[in-house]
């Protein structure tokens, strides 16, 4: 299995991808910065957003039961899925019951997380992604590289070639306007004829039973309004206590995500409405590791995330390594904390180490998730876990740390080691820095370590004591 450094190494060599990502995140940063600066109460909104999420996670059981009651009272059906396999089974079964050979889909990270599309295809059902970027990624048979702009790694020329080939439209130019028009034409028939849609959800309101989707293109409205059957899947952490809480998140999300005062469309519905929209509505509530995260008092704030992707856009590592290096549908700083918690530290590779802990993500997060703190916490857990294995017990790092513990624990040994280090410093010192450390070549290649002082503080103190 490849790890983050080796994947990042590959993507760093892709100059075109790096140019595409840099251009896009620079544009988003400018736009979000401008509209956030407009709100004098931005910090108060962040405080409230964070507090509402803390409150919701503290009474999640009550809120989910209340949500279920409200949705059922409004003619909807609520399903519960312990893990991805159970969620796939529920959704595939619901689609099969409609006999529809195709489903139209709204961009949803949660359906990516449970790997729904391959399961639908295996059951002979064709999933059609309707978000422009998701459609690009699906047609190219690639993976998303950004939470919000999944095709951020592709430029207009690459998208043009893709559409020319996949839509048999050789006349297409690389003008985004023409490319967008081509997508409109390509999807229109699917919207008006497909009887089943699958969506994610940005939030649900326990008090009223409302579920909401925030979007820009109108593909969401098409999927939520025109089919007979709507199936939505939502992580259990997305529930909000009350209707009023929307006033906070409908301000935080668009400004932090796309840099708009409000995104073009928000759809909010409760169960089914006679004469308006689908006649059947199913909500699948997904756990898939979320209750495990909830049980970790430091990491549980990961579940505050509203998927705005602002942490990706401000992250120096994401900007250079790109989204594919994270090997997950959740990339960037939030991906670095979320992926290992969802998949397990060992299986998720090393994204928790893919950060310089610079703190830009924490500062930018609209719900103030302390991502660096969670990263350090997860790194600690990863080191603990690897120390428990035999290979880990015999690793240079473990042995070095064990001998350091012995030395620091014994005054005489500590003094002796310092004297020895002073001797080493006197021997190899260049400009006050140690050039290369024997046995730690790769590590000391990229880090400069100050040489040990020729005389330790303890030695100096011992020397000066009689004069005092």
């Amino acid at each position: 299995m490849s790890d983050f450094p080796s994947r990042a190494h590959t993507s760093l060599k892709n100059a075109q991808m790096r140019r595409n990502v840099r251009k896009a995140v620079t544009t988003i940063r400018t736009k979000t910065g401008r509209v956030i600066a407009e709100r004098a109460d931005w910090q108060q909104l962040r405080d409230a957003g964070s507090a509402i999420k803390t409150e919701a996670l503290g009474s999640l059981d009550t809120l989910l039961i209340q949500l279920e009651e409200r949705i059922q009272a409004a003619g909807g059906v609520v399903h519960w899925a312990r893990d991805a396999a159970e969620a796939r089974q529920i959704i595939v079964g619901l689609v099969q019951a409609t006999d529809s050979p195709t489903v139209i889909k709204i961009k949803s990270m949660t359906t990516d997380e449970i790997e729904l599309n391959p399961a639908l295809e295996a059951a002979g059902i064709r999933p059609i992604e309707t978000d422009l970027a998701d459609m690009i990624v699906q047609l190219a048979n690639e993976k998303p590289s950004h939470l919000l702009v999944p095709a951020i790694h592709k430029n207009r020329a690459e998208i043009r070639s893709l559409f020319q080939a996949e839509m048999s439209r050789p006349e297409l130019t690389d003008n985004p306007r023409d490319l967008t028009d081509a997508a409109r034409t390509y999807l229109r028939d699917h919207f008006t004829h497909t009887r089943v849609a699958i969506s994610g959800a940005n939030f649900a309101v326990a008090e009223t039973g409302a579920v909401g989707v925030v979007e820009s293109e109108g593909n969401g409205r098409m999927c939520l309004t025109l089919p007979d059957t709507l199936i939505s899947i939502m992580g259990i952490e997305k529930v909000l206590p009350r209707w009023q809480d929307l006033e906070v998140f409908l301000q935080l999300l668009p400004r932090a995500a796309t840099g708009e005062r409000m995104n073009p469309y928000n759809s909010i519905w409760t169960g089914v409405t006679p004469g308006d929209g689908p006649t059947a509505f199913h909500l699948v509530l997904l756990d898939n590791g979320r209750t495990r995260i909830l049980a970790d008092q430091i990491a549980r704030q990961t579940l505050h995330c509203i998927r705005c992707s602002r942490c990706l856009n401000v992250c120096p590592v994401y900007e250079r390594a790109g989204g594919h290096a994270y090997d997950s549908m959740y990339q960037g700083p939030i991906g670095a904390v979320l992926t290992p918690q969802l998949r397990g530290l060992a299986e998720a590779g090393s994204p928790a180490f893919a950060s310089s802990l610079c703190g830009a993500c924490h500062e930018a997060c609209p719900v103030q998730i302390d991502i660096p703190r969670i990263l350090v916490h997860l790194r600690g857990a990863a080191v603990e876990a690897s120390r428990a294995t035999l290979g880990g017990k015999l690793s240079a790092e473990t042995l070095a740390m064990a001998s350091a513990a012995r030395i620091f624990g014994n005054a005489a040994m500590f003094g002796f080691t310092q004297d020895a280090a002073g001797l080493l410093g006197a021997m190899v010192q260049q400009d006050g820095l140690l050039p290369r450390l024997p046995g730690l070549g790769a590590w000391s290649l990229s880090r400069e370590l100050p040489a040990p002082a020729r005389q330790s503080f303890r030695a100096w103190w011992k020397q000066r004591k009689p004069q005092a």
Partner: protein
Amino acid sequence: MNAREEILARIRASSGPPSPAPARDYQHADALSPGETLSKFAGRITDYGVLVTEVANETAVADAVREICAARGIGHLVTSPDCPGPWQPQDVMITTDRGLSIEALAAIPAALTGAACAIAETGTVILDGGFAQGRRAISLLADFHLCVVFAAQIVECVPAAIAQMAPAARAGRPFTFISGPSATADIEFDRVQGVHGPRQLDVIIVRTGAASAPRS
């Protein structure tokens, strides 16, 4: 144990202490005068490329609709069954939606609706399926959406609108918040207007009167 019981049990085993209700120190109440609110709304939706027409009262709406139709080459409108007579121009073909098929709806180039509420700060109109709005598909499949907003329906900030929509939310009504025409920035983060929803949104602001005016 079924999935529901098991997930709830896991939550109960892991939940921390209940937290206090959140402090809401952000702006709640509108601070602008009605005139300022109206001009802020007009300015903000103009930023989205929306054409704004202001009229003095409801009787002038039909003329404004006629002019927009002429300017955009629209010869056919769809409306909800309760669309007021004073909004409907005589010389434009009008189809009332009484359960039209999706295909029939998609063949009509423009939709004329009212709104439930509007937000000046964000340039948003909110539809809740109430008076003169009809079902959601009306304002979705058309290329042009003409929306009539009364000045009295415009609030300044998002919290004021959410508070005003609370009764409809408790009644389970479906909401659509519309802030400009459909758009995407998925290609190089270049904004393109007119993706799957209407390509153009035109807003007619009625300075006096209210949306609850007697139906004709």
